[in-house]
Each structure stands twice: as C-alpha cells, then as structure tokens.
C-alpha cells in the first residue's frame, strides 16, 4: 500500500515538473492532419483465434478471458498514430476476477428469475402474472446491461495506452443506466421514433466522460440530423409492416394457417403479387437501411467530437460496414452447406426413415454436432473477416486534424479499476 502511495506521489511530482516545463515555454506544438494506420492481417489472426477457440473449448469456456485479451492486444497493437502504436495492457486474470465477482451476483439473479418464471409465470399461468414478470425481468436485464456497457468501456479505456499515456473514463455507471432506462422507456412510448434521442444522450455521455491522459473528449452534436437519418430505417419498417398488414387483411392470411400444407403454394400464388414483392423488397432493404443509419451515426459521433485542439473527421460509409458482414455470411454459408452435405453423406445410413430404422436417435446428435462445428468456424471467421476489416475501414476513413502538443498531454490521474467487465461478460455485451 505504501509503495502504491509512493508511486502516486512520484507520479504527481513528475507530472507537475513536466507541466512547469511547458509553462516555461519549452512546448512543441505540431500541426496534424493524419489518419491512424492499421496493419492487422487476417493470416496473423488465424493462429491466435484458432488457439483461443481450442483452449476455450478445453476449459469449458474459462479461457475466454485470456482469449479476449490476446485478441484485443493484437488489434490495438496494430493501430498506430503519428508513428506510435496503441497498446492494450489488460490481462486475462483481471477479467477473470471481474467474472468471479459477477458469478456471485448474476447466478443467483438468473436462478431466482428462472424460479419465478417456472412457477409463477409458467405457460398456463394468468396473463397478468406473465406480463408483470416479463416487464420486471426485461427492465432489470436492460438496467444491468447498461451498467455493464458503461463499466466495460471504463475498463477497456483504462487499459488502452498510446505513448505511455492512458485513456480513462469518469462518470457513473448507475447514472448512465438510469438515463438508459428513462430514454429506453421514451423510445418504447414513441414506437421507436425517439431512438436517436436516446442514442445521442447515451453515446454523448460516454464520449463526454472519456478522456485520454489529462484531456477530455467533448461531444458537441445535437440530434436533429440523427433524427432525420433515423426516419429512413423507421419508415422502411413501418411501410413493410403496413404492407404486410394490408395483404393479410385483404386475403385473410389467418386462413392460411388452416389450409392443408399441399395447398399453401397455391394460396400464396393467388396473393396480390405486386404488393407482396414490394413488401419482400422492403424486408430486404431494412437491414441495409439500418446499416446506412449506423454509418451515419458513427460519422455523427466522430465528426462532432473534439479532443483539445484536435478535430475528428470520418468518411465511413455503408459499404464499409456492410461488405465485411456480407463476406462473412457468404463464407459461413458455404462452409455450413459443405459441412451439412458432408455429414449427411457420411452418416446417410443413420437417416433410415423406416420404423425402427438403424440408430435414428443419433440423427439429432449429428445435427447438434454440425451446428456446433459451424458455431466454432463462425468464431474463427468473425474476428478475421468482420472485426479486422471493420477496424481497417474505420482507421482509413478517419482523419485527425488540428494542432496537438504532445508535451502538454499528461498522464491520466484517474484511478484504474482493478477488475474488468464481469457483468458485460455475463450478459454477453459484445463479441470481443
């Protein structure tokens, strides 16, 4: 403990000395107009991701904390700015400690909710019971989720350094979660229209409280433009719902459920095809509209953020997000088809349809095994294709410009959390 205090004192003294030097006029301010350089390669990721997957399986998931750490170390160390790389200083043990603490909180929570669901809100219980249970459960999960998001960001920032200077985050996870709850209810009450308002205040809170060294980030955007952009996916969704509803009303699709299966294609063929095609086209358009909005949002966050005298400009477009996911899904689809076809052929005798046919009870097992194999392959491909490409695009499309005085940017004085992300891990907040 004494050593820690000692170290802190020495730190403060050194920072004060450095500050004094600046005041004495030995500062070197530079003009900057530069993009971060990303040098990550998919083939370099492959051995890391593969080893991670194998060890995670062998340890029933326990290795995932060290696995996440290795992946983060790789991605961050391949991002460089002004010639110096970022660095991730977190450890698997820190994540593990966070997990142990949350295990003690989260497991009883899930246990009690499971119990209540089984006995009070089981299928067949009164609708009021079920509704109350669902509402309380969802609110509690949403609240915990928001706390987890905020705390995870605090941990990750505190472990991100550049030129030896730490990032950090102030603010309160509880206040953030309360905001998220209020704004979430507002979004619900306005049928999703208030979503950009919620996003602006939540992301704004996260940006405003983030800092790098002694300097804070500042977000200065409103939500007018966001709202206008949000209308694209929102209206697409509304139009799609309306069109499907109209078709259902016109042709009474409820009848379809009672139609014998062999007649269904005939009934579908008799549907007003133009409207149906229009509705299906909207259904396909919806994810693209959503990704377009996400890209717009990302530009909005980045372009309105200021760091001291540095401004950020992003040119991130829809295709930068869409193509990595598209490539990932296409590769995954091809691999899955190959696996199912291969297994189906190898075990074709197991699918004997006659009564008492050979070992048919193994058929579900084989299906589970192939789903598992595909899940594993997805785990390998995701960082290699999606994350790798996304990070590259984000770096390429980002420019930092303005003036920057490296010797006036001092070491962060924020306390570092000792453990990381237990709650975010338990709630599966994000993939890496």
């Amino acid at each position, binding site marked *: 403990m004494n050593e820690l205090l000692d*170290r802190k004192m020495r*730190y403060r003294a*050194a*920072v004060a*000395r*450095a500050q004094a030097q600046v005041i004495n006029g030995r500062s*070197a301010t530079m003009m900057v107009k530069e993009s971060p350089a990303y*040098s990550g390669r998919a083939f370099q990721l492959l051995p890391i991701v593969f080893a991670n997957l194998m060890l995670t399986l062998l340890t*029933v*998931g*326990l290795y*995932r904390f060290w696995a996440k750490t290795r992946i983060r*170390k790789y991605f961050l*160390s391949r991002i460089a700015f002004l010639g*110096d*790389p970022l*660095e991730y*200083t977190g450890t698997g*043990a820190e994540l*593990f400690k966070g997990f*142990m603490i*949350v*295990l003690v909180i*989260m*497991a*009883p*929570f*899930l*246990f009690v909710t*499971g*119990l209540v669901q*089984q*006995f*009070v809100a*089981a*299928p*067949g*219980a009164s609708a009021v019971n079920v509704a109350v249970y669902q509402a309380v459960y969802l609110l509690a999960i949403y609240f915990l989720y928001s706390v987890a998001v905020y705390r995870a960001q605090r941990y990750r920032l505190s472990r991100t*350094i*550049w*030129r*030896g*200077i*730490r990032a950090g985050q102030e603010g309160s996870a509880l206040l953030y979660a309360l905001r998220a709850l209020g704004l979430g209810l507002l979004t619900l009450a306005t049928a999703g229209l208030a979503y950009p308002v919620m996003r602006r205040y939540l992301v704004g809170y996260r940006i405003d409280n983030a800092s790098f*060294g002694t300097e804070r980030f500042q977000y200065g955007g409103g939500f007018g433009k966001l709202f206008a952009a949000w209308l694209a996916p929102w209206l697409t969704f509304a139009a799609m719902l309306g069109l499907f509803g109209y078709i259902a009303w016109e042709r009474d699709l409820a009848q379809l459920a009672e139609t014998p299966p062999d007649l269904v294609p005939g009934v579908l063929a008799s549907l007003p095809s133009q409207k149906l095609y229009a509705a299906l086209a909207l259904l396909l358009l919806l994810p693209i509209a959503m990704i377009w909005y996400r890209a717009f949002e990302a530009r909005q966050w980045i372009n309105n953020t200021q760091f001291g005298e540095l401004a950020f400009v992003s040119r991130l477009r829809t295709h930068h997000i869409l193509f990595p996911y598209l490539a990932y899904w296409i590769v995954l689809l091809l691999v899955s088809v190959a696996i199912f076809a291969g297994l189906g052929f190898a075990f074709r005798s197991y699918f004997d349809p006659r009564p008492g046919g050979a070992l048919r009870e193994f058929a579900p097992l084989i299906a*589970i095994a192939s*789903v*598992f194999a595909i*899940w594993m392959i997805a785990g390998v491909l995701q960082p290699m294709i999606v994350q790798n490409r996304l990070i590259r695009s984000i770096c390429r499309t980002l420019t930092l410009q303005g003036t920057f005085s*490296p*010797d*006036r*940017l*001092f*070491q962060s004085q924020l306390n570092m959390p000792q453990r990381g992300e237990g709650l975010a*891990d*338990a*709630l*599966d907040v994000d993939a890496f």
Partner: protein
Amino acid sequence: MSTPSEPSPDFPARLNDGHSAAVRNAVVRAAPRGLVIAALDGAEIGCWAWDDVHLAERPAPDRSIRLSSRRDPGSRLAIADHAVLTTLRPHAHYLRRGPVSARQVWTAAGIAAAFAATIAFFIFGLPWIARPVAALIPASWEEPVGDSTVEIINQVFARGRKLCDGADGSAALQTLTRKLAASVDTSYDIRVSVADSGMVNALAAPGGRVVIFRGLIERARSADEVAGVLAHEMAHVVRRHPTQGMIASLGWSALLSVFTGGASLSNEATARLAAHLATSAYGRELEAEADEGALAMLNAAGIGSAGLASFFRSMERQEKAGIQLPEYLSTHPQTNKRIEAVTKGAATARKPALSDVEWKSLKAICR
C-alpha cells in the same frame, strides 16, 4: 556517464517517459547498474534498474521491441533492432524465461481454487440449496409445470400418442393410488398417468404427477410389482424430490450460462443438456429415501414389499442375462442393497394390491 570500457553497443530507441505524450529519440545501452538511456548528443537521460526492465508486449517480427520499467507503468522504449534482446537478456531477468514469480503462482492458484469451488458448488451446493427452496414453493404452483412436464415426456417417449385411458384400467389404477396414498400426508393431489410407450420405466414429475410407461405394466408379473414401483414414485412426489430436481436443474442452467459466458444460443443448449444430464437421475440418497417411503406406504396398505423386491430382482436378472439395460434400472443404481433394504423392513402381505379382474383391466389400459 558512459565509460569507454562498456562493450555494449548503442541501440536507437524512442522514449516515452510515462508522464507526457512527448517522444524523445534516444539511444540505449546495457551497463552493469542498468539500462542506460541517453540523448542523441550523449547526455544521459535516465537509467532503468535491471530488476525493473520488462517487455511491454510480446515481441513480433514485424514490430519494434517495446520495453517498460516497473517503476513507471507508462514508460516505454521502442527499439527497432531485435538484436537488443540478445544484448539485454543476460542482465534483465524479466526478459529471460526465468522462474515463475510468486505473484503468478498465487494468481494461478487463485484461479484454480475458484474453479474448483465453482465445480464443487455445482455438484454439492445445488442439491443442498434445492431442498429448502423446494419447501418454500406451494404445491399448487407446481401444477402447470407438472402438466407440461408430463406432456413433454409423452411427446418424447410416446411420440405424442394419447395417454392410456381405458375406463376399467384407470379405475383400477386410481384404486391402487388411493390405497397407497391413504397413509401419507401430502398437499399434492397425486395423479398417475400411463404413457403409451414400450419402455420399462416410471417417473415422478413436479405437481404430484406420476407417469408409468406401458412397458412397465406389461413386464410386471403381478399387481404387487406395479404397486411397488408406484409407491416408490409416489414417495418421490411426497418428499418433493421432483421439485428439488427442477430447482437444482434451474440452478445448473443459471450457473452454466454465466460460467460459459453470456446467454447465446449454443450456451443455452449446452446448459440445458448439462442440466438434464446432471439431474435426470436422483442421487443414491434420494433413492434410498424413496424406497423407505415406498416401504412404509406398502406396509400401511397391507400390500407388503415383496412385489417391489421381485420387480427389482427380475430387472437385475435381465441385466445379467446381457439384455439391454432396462431403463428403470439404469437410473436406479445399487440394486442388491436396495432389495435387501426393501425386504428387511417388510410386513407380510395381507391381501394382493389389486383383484385379478382389476389387474387384468390395468394390463389392458392402453387398448
């Protein structure tokens, strides 16, 4: 401060002092007292003690070697020339693959202990918690759960065929159930169904539901044997074992879904599978409890335990003859001891469990 006698070469480096984001170009060289950092004009900037020098990240061929000093967590030296490692290794023991530090050992031990404690809790803690929690749950709450469990069992094992409901057979089964239940005090309304499946099995579900499989009734040689098995399952019900099993399995799911991280689809499936495997059979203790309860019920009803014992014995013979292990036995281990226990406390049978006519109609309940 560098003296000409030092043989170490100079390595160009970029220095961050950990206090500001400024970078200094410098050179580093090894000296007996530590890693000496000098400005390009030769003036010494600092010296890191060998005990403090460590790698800030794992060296990669396409990147600079990055060193840090333990005195200043933010300090960094980036050295492009990988030969620096060969020069520094003899001095800096953190750069060698040396003995593991005590801290690392403690961390590893802590992780192992936490892991072991969690596993122990899975195995011993959950059943221990399940009993008091089960006692808190009103029997009436379980009924919807029991009904849906019976439905699922019927779906899985009898392919959703109608539960057997032959009128005379049902009446006989009800008579037998009443006879056995007469001596016990329970808040359950015990209901016994017969599933139309050839498996030789019987099981107890929450909410006072018992399912007997057609195969068991067909295999039984007398009504007393069916009465024995029924009493055993009823004893499970009365002692709330199915409820406890369900609670333990819920605990399993909850723990496993946290343990394996998040609630994604695959984890959910694993959790369910594991929960099922872990709790589909009751432990030896609970089986002994149920045997004891069955014995009391059978004695009170004047049926005696000879039927139960003879059913166990016939199952065991089948097993020894190499016939596929009867399902009922596979979840009920330790047959020999149980036969002994059941026979020891038996009162003599005063009357058969069912009349011949009733037994015949019970056998025909699925027709």
